[in-house]
C-alpha cells in the first residue's frame, strides 16, 4: 500500500522497516510540532502505522498538540533506560488507532539521552511502524543531533522570515545530502506576499533550493485546533487540512500536483478565518 523509497544506507537497513523522518528547522517556534502532529495524523488517516516521537526532551509539547497530555505515563527515556517497554510508553491517539505518540521526558535534559540509544530506539520503532516522525527540538546542539541520528529523511519547516530561512540554511548545511531534505513553508500570509510585504515561497526557496513538499498558510484555525488538542488534519475539508493530506500523499510516494496554496488559500483561508473566527 505504502510505497517506500529506497533507503539511503541500503546494506544496513532491511526493506521491511518503516521510514524515519525527522522534522526540523533550527529556529524555534516555526511550527515543527504542529507540522509533526498534522503530518502524522494525515499519514495515519491513509491507513499507515505512524509513531510520533517527541525528541524535545525537557520541553515536550507534542502531547499537548495531540491532546494526549493526560494520557502520557511514560516517556522516551524510560524506554531507553529500560524501565518500561515500548508498548507501555506508546500512547495511542484519541482519533486514530494507527497513530501513536512516544513522549519526551519533561523532567530530564537532552544531554541525558545517549545518541546511540536514540538511534536504537528509532530502529525498534521502524520495525513496527510504517513511519516514524521525529519532532526535533530547536537548536543545532545535542538534542538536534539525537533527533537526526536515527532518521533517514528530513523535512525542514521554514516560515517566510529572514531569521527562519537563515536557520534552515544552517540546518541544511549540517544535514548534508544524506537526508534528502524537503521543505515545508509554514505560516505563509498570501495577502502580505501579494502586497510585497512578506517573503514569497519562491523567495525562500530561491535560497534554500529544496524540493517543496508543501505550503501552509497562517490560519487562525491552526491556533484553534491546537488549543483543543485536535490536529487540523483530522478534517480534510478545510484548505489547510487538505494541504496536510496532499503532503502525506507525496510522502507516501504518490505523484501529486505541486502545491498551489499561495493563491487558493488567500481566498478560502480568509473566508474561513472570517467565519471560523466567530464560531
Amino acid at each position, binding site marked *: 500500500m505504502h510505497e517506500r523509497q529506497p533507503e539511503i544506507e541500503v546494506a544496513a537497513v532491511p526493506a521491511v522497516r518503516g521510514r524515519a523522518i525527522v522534522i526540523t528547522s533550527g529556529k524555534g517556534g516555526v511550527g515543527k510540532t504542529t507540522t509533526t502532529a498534522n503530518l502524522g495524523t494525515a499519514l495515519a488517516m491513509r491507513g499507515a502505522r505512524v509513531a510520533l516521537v517527541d525528541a524535545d526532551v525537557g520541553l515536550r509539547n507534542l502531547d499537548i498538540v495531540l491532546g494526549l497530555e493526560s494520557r502520557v505515563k511514560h516517556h522516551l527515556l524510560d524506554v531507553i533506560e529500560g524501565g518500561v517497554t515500548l508498548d507501555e510508553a506508546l500512547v495511542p491517539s484519541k482519533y486514530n488507532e494507527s497513530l501513536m505518540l512516544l513522549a519526551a521526558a519533561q523532567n530530564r535534559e537532552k544531554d541525558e539521552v545517549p545518541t546511540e540509544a536514540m538511534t536504537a530506539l528509532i530502529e525498534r520503532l521502524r520495525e513496527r511502524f510504517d513511519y516514524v516522525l521525529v519532532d526535533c527540538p530547536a537548536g543545532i546542539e545535542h538534542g538536534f543531533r539525537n533527533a537526526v541520528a536515527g532518521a533517514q529523511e528530513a523535512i525542514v519547516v521554514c516560515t517566510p522570515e529572514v531569521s527562519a530561512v537563515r536557520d534552515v540554511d544552517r540546518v541544511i548545511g549540517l544535514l548534508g545530502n544524506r537526508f534528502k531534505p524537503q521543505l515545508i513553508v509554514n505560516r505563509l500570509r498570501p495577502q*502580505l506576499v501579494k502586497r510585497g510585504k*512578506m*517573503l514569497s515561497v519562491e523567495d525562500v526557496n530561491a535560497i534554500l533550493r529544496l524540493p517543496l513538499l508543501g505550503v501552509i498558510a497562517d490560519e487562525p484555525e491552526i491556533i484553534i485546533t491546537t488549543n483543543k488538542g485536535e490536529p487540523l488534519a483530522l478534517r480534510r475539508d478545510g484548505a489547510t487540512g487538505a494541504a496536510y493530506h496532499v503532503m502525506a500523499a507525496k510522502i507516501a510516494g504518490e505523484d501529486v500536483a505541486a502545491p498551489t496554496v499561495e493563491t487558493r488559500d488567500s481566498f478560502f483561508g480568509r473566508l474561513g478565518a472570517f467565519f471560523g473566527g466567530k464560531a
Partner: protein
Amino acid sequence: MIDFFKRLFGPSDSGATAKQRLQLVLMTDHLALAPEMIDAMKRELVEVISRYVEVDREKVEVDFERHDHALAMMANVPILGVARPSERAPEPLEPAQPVAAQPAAAGAPPLQQRKRRKKAQRAPA
C-alpha cells in the same frame, strides 16, 4: 499582478527588504563557515597579483565588509616592487643593443645567423 503591486509600492517594500537582508546575511554566514575557502582564495589572489608585481605575502589581508545593500571583499595587498615596464614588455622605441641581445642568446638565434651557421658549422664559438 504581483508586478503591478511591486510597481505600486516601489522597491521599499518590506518583503524586498527582507529578501535583500536574507541574501546578505547568508553570504556572510557562508563565508564565516568556510574559513578554508577564504584562505584558498587569498592564496590564489596573491599568486595572480604576484605575476605582475612583487607582493609582501605575509602582510596580505582579505576582509569582507557588509554595507547596507552589498557585501564587498576588501583586499589589502602591500606591494614591494614593480618591475620597470621595459623589462616586462618589448618597447617599440628600443635600440637593438643590450636588451635585445639577451633573449637572442637564450632563445633561437635570429634568422640571418642561423643561415650562416648552416654553411659554416664550426664558425663562431
